[in-house]
């Protein structure tokens, strides 16, 4: 998934090969991760796709099924992975993920501790941020979940950057070997306040902690605990509003005193062809218009950041 020294993740020269992990894109809301395997087939509502047809094509290619349906084959990125990974738990999405990475000041070479691992959505982005010389140590008390996460990091080629441990961080804290070694710590736990003292021990001086909690009561309690060893305690909520774009037709109606402008959004392809046909006809004009999508995620969780107090 990530480029390495001398090895590019994507390039004009890089063609899909047997064994590659690819993201099959049907629509923006329908994506799937697949390991290319000569002889295998992908079957979906667009027909049957032979993996063998894909090998040797560039990433980003449009490929057709026996029935003439098509999908796109994309190179995996942490953002796409977040959309396709199997949800073993509630996961973090791009707005929270990117905010966490930048607020935790994670740069190449950092050592980051995380708990719980969950489905590994954030871990994947953390790994990208610490690469090539840093490392992410992520812990989950659920043995099976940890094993699945490990498999996923193997699949995405990140196992040299992420180590999954099985441990009850709320109960036992982080392992002592990381004392004073972590640049940043991320907690996504039901009772983060139990793990905060340990997180403080793990952090280098001036290191940053983040706790993600869906409920304000959790935040309240975490903040009280943080006040003992941490400073710069700040809580945020970050959400995304997306926009729909349509080419609309505006009817001037020929009347000079400006009848209320009515816009008739229609399929863009039709409109675009109409522009050409109606050129010179000044009764209608088309314009690209945008409006916020009607539905959006209203809440994911609160992100609380705090910096280890500098005491000596």
């Amino acid at each position: 998934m990530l480029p390495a020294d001398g090895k590019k993740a994507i390039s004009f020269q890089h063609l899909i090969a047997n064994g590659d992990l690819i993201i099959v894109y049907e629509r923006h809301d329908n994506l799937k991760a697949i390991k290319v395997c000569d002889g295998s087939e992908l079957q979906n509502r667009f027909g049957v796709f032979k993996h063998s047809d894909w090998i040797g094509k560039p990433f980003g290619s449009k490929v057709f099924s026996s029935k003439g349906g098509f999908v796109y084959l994309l190179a995996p990125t942490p953002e796409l992975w977040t959309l396709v990974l199997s949800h073993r738990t509630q996961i973090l999405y791009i707005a929270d993920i990117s905010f966490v990475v930048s607020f935790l000041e994670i740069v190449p070479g950092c050592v980051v501790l995380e708990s719980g691992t969950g489905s590994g959505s954030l871990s994947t982005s953390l790994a990208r941020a610490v690469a090539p010389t840093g490392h992410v140590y992520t812990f989950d008390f659920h043995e099976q979940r940890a094993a699945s996460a490990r498999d996923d990091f193997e699949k995405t080629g990140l196992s040299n950057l992420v180590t999954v441990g099985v441990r009850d961080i709320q109960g036992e804290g982080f392992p002592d070997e990381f004392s004073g070694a972590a640049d940043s710590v991320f907690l996504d736990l039901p009772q983060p306040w139990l793990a905060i003292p340990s997180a403080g021990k793990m952090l280098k001086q001036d290191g940053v902690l983040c706790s993600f909690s869906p409920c304000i009561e959790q935040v309240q309690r975490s903040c009280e605990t943080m006040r003992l060893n941490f400073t710069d305690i700040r809580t945020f909520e970050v959400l995304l509003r997306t926009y729909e774009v349509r080419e609309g037709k505006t009817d001037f109606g020929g009347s000079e005193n400006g009848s209320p402008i009515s816009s008739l959004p229609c399929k863009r392809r039709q409109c675009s062809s109409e522009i050409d046909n109606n050129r010179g006809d000044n009764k209608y004009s088309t314009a690209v218009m945008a409006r916020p999508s009607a539905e959006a995620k209203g809440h994911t969780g609160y992100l609380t950041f705090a910096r280890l107090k500098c005491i000596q």
Partner: protein
Amino acid sequence: MAETNLQNDSIQNPRITWEGCSVLLDINDGDRLVFARLSAASSLKIGDKKCALSPLIGCPFGSLFQVETGSKGPYLSRIVAASEDDIQEKSDLQLKDETKDNRALVDNNSAQTLSGEDIDAMRRQGATGDEIVEALIANSSTFEKKTSFSQEKYRIKKQKKYAPRVLLRRPFSRSICEAYFKKYPARIGYLRVDTLSLLLSMANVSAYSDVLVVDMVETSIIGLSFIFPPKWLPASHAFEAIGWNLEVNYMASQFWFFTIENSIFYLHLGYGYVCNTYFGATQYPMDIVRIFNLNNKICGSILRSPVSDLCLASSNSSEHHGQQETFSLQSESDMGESISSGVSLIEPEGQVVQMETSFQSVEPSMPCQVPMSTDETVTSSVSRACKPAKPGEKATPEILNLWKSNGFSSLIIAAPELDTWSTVKDLLPLLSYSAPFAVYHQYLQPLATCMHNLQVSKMAINLQISEPWLREYQVLPSRTHPFMQMSAFGGYILSGIKICNNNEAQNQSK
């Protein structure tokens, strides 16, 4: 190389400041943020007091200082653990439940019996800031009637005025962006920190990736966030500026900033190159490079190339290399032009002579080695070609070809002055297939138009316009709520993934 090693030695523990290091100073809990360079001579004006910054040298980042007045005038004194405990106790007081309210408060400005003259007299007698704050509280007739929450507020307000605190911070792209957004949002094109983070994620920025960046906001936060964070790059050296010492003195309420005009950064993150490319006629200043006091390795990796060379690299780059071709922006009228032509070179209106700068005059006539992706090779080839390495070498035809044959792995555009669609249309062909891109704009319409055109021309998929929304909370016992004031807008991002046009692919694979 020896010099590089020395530099590295001097920054073995980047969590402690050193002389010559650049820092972010947070004054009075975020009221003011100042970038400063620590030296024996540098000073900072806080309120009406000028304090030397030398006491900050050798302290860990995160240290807190308070302005005290000594016999030789005001100075910054480090607040150590013991006194911090006091602060902690004070704020713990407010945890108790309250029955007090403001029914007895009369706002007639007579509550404080201590006059300005009294305070001045105390100061002359050498009272510390904390003592003045205590005296103010003791002489406030209403203080006891206040809720402990507003007592604390009162105390903080007075402390800020009479005993200002300075917090020593490592300058990070996040904190720099926040600082600018708070004070001078226009200078960073209203790019809020969450939007900046999102841009970097959406463009899949990582080590060894080849990011093409068009960053034309006045203060290049995006360019900065690439070059700045890597640890092997001395964080504070990176931010060392020309005339920084001077600036610190007169910077009272002004952020020091730098300008990058008409520049595109090509960045091979961490180990490779920054290729500063330009649209338009005027040679932009390489201010960013002078700002970052970079070591040889980094300087050697900053290259420049006009867009025309980038676009032409495949066909016959060696011919075009070195020619002073300029690339003018396509106006809106060009929008109907065929998209499939991978090359867009338009002669500028009127003859424009490209200015030679001192950077360009060191353009090596001897060819650099074809760089491999390993930083060692790059370093050695560059340092051989030009000692000491100067930033802004023109990209060699070999490097251009390398870029062309691989394609960039992502594209970030933050260029409010450029027509979004024509910029995207021109630069997208430089991107590898399946490469993500992210375009920032503070207005929605240019992105909507661009998205629509990309859809119609089937150049990209997974297109989305997003607007991040960020709300900060006050979290206090029984007093948790969103902040009363918030930023209502942090910019829009158009993101997408370039797809492989089959014809193009066939040409490529030949």
